[in-house]
C-alpha cells in the first residue's frame, strides 16, 4: 500500500506542475457543459412556424361584439411559437428545407365561418417528420387553445347578451334584422294584468322560474366552457441554470473528463517515460500501479467536484434560491465523487493500458468521453439501448447519485443503488485495467 501511495504522491506532484494541463482539463468540460446547456436551451426555445393567411384576415376582426387585433393575437401566441407570415409556396419550401418546423394555414372562408357562429372553422397545420413534430403539435394545440379561450370569452359575452335580452327585453339585431324583444320580466308583469285563471298562473310561474334559471346562465356557461382552469402561480423554483439537473450534469461531465483522461494518460505515461520497467522489478506491482492511477482520478474528482459544488452553493445562497441542500449534503456528495472518480479512473486506466502511449491514450479517452456522456444524456425511455449502454458506464450513475444526494428529500434508496453500480463498475474496469496493464511491458 505504501508503494502505491508513493506513486500516487508522485502523480499528484507531477499534476501540480502541469498547470496548463489541469486548467484545460477543468475548463474544457465546463465549456462543454455550458454548450450542452445552451443546446438544451435551444431545444426548448420557440419553434419557428410559418403562418399562411389564405383568408386575408384584416388587421382587426370583430367577433361576438369583441374586437380582435390579429397582430396582438400573434404576439400572444408568440410566447410559445415564433410565427412568421409566409405565402403558401414559401411556407411549403421552408418546411421542406427545415427553415420552419411547421406551417399553420388559415384557409379561405375561415373568418366568415367563425363570425357566423354556425360552422366551426379549422386551422390546418403540417409539421416536419421526426422527434420534434410531437412537440410542435403540442405548441400548435396550445396556440389554438389560447385562441379558443379568447373566442370563448367573446362568444360567452354574445350569448349572455341574448340571455339578458330574453330576461329583461330590449332591441337586438340578428342575421342583419332588427328585433324588439319583450323579455321574461315584462312578460311576467303583463301576465299579471290578465284576468286571473289557472292557465295564467301556470304561464306566469313558468316565466318566473325561467327568469331565475336564466340568471345563472353566465356562471353555468363559463364552467361548461372551462371545466378545469389552469392558473400560473408566482415563480418560486430556482432558475434552470441553477437546477439540480444542470448541477448534477456539470459535476458528472467535469469529473468524467478529468478522471478518464488523467488515469489513461498517467498510466500510459509510465510506459512513455520507461519507468514501468524499473517499477515492476519488485518495487511496485502492476496492480499497485493501476490502483495508484485510480486513486489519482478519485482524489482529483473529489477535489474538483467539491469545488464546483461549493461554487454552486455560494451562488445559490447569494441568489436566495430555495430548494436543495447545498451544504448539509456535501459529505454525501463527497462519497459519490470519490467513487465515481474511482470508477471513471478505472475505465481510464483500462484505456491507458490498451492504448499504451500517453498521446494515444489521451486521444482515445477524449473520443470515448463524448459517447459516454451523450449516452447518459439520452432518456432511456426514448432510446432503451442508450439506457443499457449508459448503465454499463459510470457517467449516468454518477449524475443520478449527485442529483439524489444534493436534492432528493429521501435519497438513500437511489444513492444505495448508484453506489452499488459505481463500486461494481470500478471493480470490473479496475480488473480489466490490471489485466491489460501487462501490455505496458511489451
Amino acid at each position, binding site marked *: 500500500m505504501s508503494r502505491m501511495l*508513493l506513486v500516487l504522491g*508522485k502523480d499528484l506532484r*507531477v499534476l501540480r506542475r502541469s498547470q496548463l494541463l489541469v486548467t484545460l482539463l477543468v475548463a474544457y468540460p465546463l465549456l462543454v457543459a455550458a454548450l450542452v446547456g445552451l443546446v438544451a436551451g435551444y431545444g426548448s426555445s420557440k419553434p419557428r412556424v410559418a403562418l399562411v393567411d389564405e383568408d386575408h384576415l384584416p388587421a382587426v376582426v370583430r367577433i361576438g361584439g369583441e374586437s380582435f387585433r390579429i397582430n396582438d393575437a400573434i404576439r400572444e401566441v408568440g410566447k410559445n411559437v415564433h410565427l412568421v407570415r409566409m405565402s403558401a409556396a414559401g411556407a411549403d419550401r421552408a418546411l421542406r428545407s427545415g427553415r420552419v418546423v411547421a406551417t399553420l394555414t388559415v384557409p379561405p372562408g375561415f373568418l366568415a365561418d367563425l363570425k357566423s357562429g354556425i360552422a366551426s372553422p379549422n386551422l390546418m397545420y403540417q409539421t416536419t417528420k421526426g422527434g420534434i413534430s410531437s412537440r410542435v403539435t403540442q405548441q400548435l394545440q396550445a396556440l389554438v387553445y389560447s385562441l379558443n379561450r379568447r373566442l370563448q370569452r367573446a362568444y360567452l359575452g354574445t350569448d349572455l347578451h341574448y340571455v339578458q335580452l330574453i330576461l329583461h327585453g330590449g332591441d337586438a339585431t340578428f342575421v342583419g334584422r332588427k328585433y324588439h324583444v319583450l323579455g321574461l320580466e315584462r312578460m311576467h308583469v303583463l301576465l299579471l294584468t290578465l284576468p286571473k285563471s289557472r292557465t295564467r298562473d301556470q304561464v306566469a310561474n313558468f316565466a318566473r322560474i325561467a327568469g331565475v334559471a336564466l340568471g345563472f346562465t353566465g356562471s353555468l356557461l363559463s364552467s361548461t366552457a372551462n371545466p378545469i382552469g389552469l392558473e400560473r402561480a408566482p415563480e418560486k423554483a430556482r432558475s434552470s441554470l441553477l437546477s439540480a439537473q444542470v448541477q448534477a450534469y456539470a459535476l458528472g461531465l467535469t469529473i468524467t473528463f478529468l478522471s478518464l483522461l488523467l488515469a489513461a494518460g498517467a498510466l500510459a505515461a509510465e510506459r512513455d*517515460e*520507461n*519507468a514501468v*520497467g*524499473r517499477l515492476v522489478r519488485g518495487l*511496485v506491482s502492476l496492480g499497485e500501479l493501476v490502483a495508484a492511477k485510480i486513486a489519482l482520478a478519485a482524489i482529483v474528482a473529489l477535489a474538483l467536484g467539491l469545488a464546483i459544488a461549493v461554487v454552486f452553493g455560494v451562488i445559490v445562497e447569494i441568489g436566495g434560491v430555495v430548494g436543495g441542500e447545498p451544504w448539509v449534503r456535501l459529505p454525501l456528495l463527497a462519497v459519490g465523487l470519490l467513487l465515481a472518480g474511482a470508477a471513471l479512473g478505472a475505465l481510464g486506466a483500462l484505456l491507458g493500458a490498451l492504448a499504451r502511449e500517453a498521446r494515444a491514450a489521451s486521444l482515445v479517452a477524449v473520443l470515448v468521453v463524448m459517447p459516454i456522456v451523450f449516452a447518459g444524456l439520452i432518456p432511456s425511455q426514448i432510446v432503451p439501448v442508450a439506457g443499457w449502454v449508459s448503465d454499463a458506464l459510470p457517467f449516468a450513475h454518477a449524475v443520478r447519485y449527485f442529483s439524489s444526494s444534493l436534492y432528493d428529500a429521501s435519497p438513500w434508496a437511489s444513492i444505495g443503488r448508484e453506489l452499488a453500480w459505481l463500486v461494481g463498475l470500478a471493480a470490473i474496469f479496475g480488473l480489466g485495467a490490471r489485466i491489460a496493464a501487462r501490455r505496458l*511491458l511489451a
Partner: protein
Amino acid sequence: MTEAFLRARGVARRFGAQVALEPTDLEVVPGEALALIGPNGAGKSTLLSILAGSLDPSAGHVQRADGVRVGWVPQRPAYYDRLTARENLELFARLEREPDPASAAERLLAQFDLPADRPSSTLSVGNRQRLNVALGMLGAPPVLLLDEPTASLDPGQRRRLWETVAVVREQGGAVVFATQNLEELDLYATRVAVLQRGRLRFAGAVDEYERAHAEEVFS
C-alpha cells in the same frame, strides 16, 4: 564453487510472432564483468530486461540468489521528466526501501555530479544518462545490469562510469553490460556472451572469444 547471483534457465521471449530471444542459459557470478555483445536486434536488451526482472520471459525462469539486489540501467533512461534529479532519486530510494532516502539521493547526486533541482527533462543527454545510472545504483546492489551505458557519454563521463563499475566488482559484486564497443570489451569485461538473432552463440572468456569468434559476430 561460487554461487551464482543470477541463473537464467531456458529463458526465451516472444513479442507476438516475433522471437526476440530463443531459450538461453546464462549465469552471473560474483566478481565478474560479463559483456553482452551482438548486432542490433540480437536480443541483448531483452536478455538484460529479463535478468533485471522488468520483463517476464515467455519461457524459462531466472533464479536470483537469496537477498541479492539487482541494479538496472536500461538503454533508454527510465525516470520521471517532471521531477528533478533529487526527487527522482528520493522517490526510487523510498521504493527501494533505502533507510535514509534523502541521504542516498544526496550521495548519488554528488557521486554523479548531477544538477539536483532542475526538472529532469531539462538535463543534457549526458546528465540524463548519468541520472539513469545513478538510479541503478540505489540500494548499493551487488549486481549491476547496464544496457549500453556509455552510448551517450563523453570520454570523461565514460571513464568515471567504469570507475564506479569497478568499485562494484571490487566489493565482490558482478556487472553485466551490453555494448557494441569492442574496446570496452577488451578493457572492462572478464567474460563475454555473444548473441545473434536472439540466439546465444558463445559464452566464455574474452580471449577465447577473440581467438575464435570476433570476426563473425558483427559480420
